[in-house]
């Protein structure tokens, strides 16, 4: 299972929203999100949900039409929808229909606006925004941007390795006839991970360490 290959991919390129810089999209999303949370007017929220839906369609989401490998992508957005439905149902049950409708519109608007940004912004572009955001802190000496980049690299690099390690441990426990007791799986997992950390730190130091001189 490849984390990198399964990142929530960008939908068809070249729509109007694709051309917006990532930072602008994030800022707009943040502003819209704040505004949506602060208002309770059903008409504003209803209209926003509709507008959000239109934005999504205009950037070709959901990608039902083009039969690419979109099953992963669509199902990933299914979960927020299910959570949304559960919450709306709960609210309807305890607070009544009107409140539930308000919440439905607000959550839908938030979700769909967020999806349209996600579908038109690659992970690389998002990371670039993070880096730009960190740059002033780097200049002021608060953080080391290269160390931050290294840590992201390590996490992404080691994630599939640790996943495999987990499966190995499970198999080893199964082969010994043990039920998958969480303790029996977690202790070796943690110990091996910490050993890995020690060796990786050595490897980085052997290549000159993590900081610029």
């Amino acid at each position, binding site marked *: 299972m490849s984390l990198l290959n399964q990142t929530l991919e960008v939908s068809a390129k070249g729509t109007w929203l694709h051309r917006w810089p990532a930072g602008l999209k994030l800022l707009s999303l943040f502003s819209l999100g704040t505004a949506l949370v602060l208002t309770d007017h059903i008409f504003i929220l209803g209209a926003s949900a509709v507008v959000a839906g239109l934005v999504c369609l205009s950037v070709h989401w959901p990608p039902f039409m083009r039969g690419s490998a979109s099953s992963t992508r669509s199902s990933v957005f299914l979960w927020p929808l299910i959570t949304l439905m559960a919450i709306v149902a709960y609210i309807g049950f305890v607070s009544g229909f009107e409140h539930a409708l308000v919440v439905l519109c607000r959550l839908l608007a938030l979700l769909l606006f967020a999806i349209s940004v996600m579908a038109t912004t690659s992970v690389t572009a998002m990371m670039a925004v993070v880096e730009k955001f960190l740059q002033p802190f780097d200049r002021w000496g608060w953080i080391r941007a290269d160390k931050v980049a290294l840590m992201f690299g390590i996490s992404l690099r080691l994630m599939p390795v640790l996943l495999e390690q987990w499966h190995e441990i499970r198999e080893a426990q199964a082969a010994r006839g043990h039920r998958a007791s969480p303790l029996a799986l977690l202790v070796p997992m943690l110990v091996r991970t910490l050993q*890995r950390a020690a060796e990786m730190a050595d490897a980085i130091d052997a290549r000159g360490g993590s900081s610029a001189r």
Partner: protein
Amino acid sequence: MIIEFEAVSVERGARTILRELNISLSEARIGIVGPNGAGKSTFARLINGLLVPSAGRMVCNGLPVAEHLNAVRQQVGFLFQNPDNQIVFPVVQEDMAFGLKHSLPDKTLRAARIQATLAQLDIADLADRAVHTLSGGQKQLVALACVLCMQPDLLVLDEPTTQLDLRFRNRLLQIIGQLPQPVIAISHDLAMLETFERVLVIDQASIQADGPAAEVLPWYRARYA
């Protein structure tokens, strides 16, 4: 390139791992063998300062290692046994660039050096691959490339062939044979060390044998098989 151990001891708690080593390493191909847990890895890690001696000192090309860690680590390349613990970035090229960040800040020169090193090991096609999609042997070659691209003056290899299948083992041996730098290799793979100039046997905290491969390896086989 001379590595000197001057009365070096390493103790961990009550246990003495290496005792009063006085030795000078300068040959082009040096092998290190010995039973597991005898101190071979400790020996290797003293060379580039990953471990510091409890007593005595290490000198690398005239530089005391303890005081010149960064300079020594620029000169000594270290390949670890498990490439998964050595490659830190998800994509091959990124990891190689990381090693060169300080020594080669110019991006074009860096890219050229990366390409050249990958070509040297015949893995140029792996440049943009995600590391976790590679086989064990490919990962080890990538790890070696990451070390070689920094153009070290000496290479230390910790069990380089232990996790490789036959095909990659042979490929690695061929590469090692062609490397211009001197190489110090810890290995259980005695066949690999047959062509080495000098082999050390480390056991019970000291060097039990030290000489040409042709003499030491048969002795080692007889005693430790």
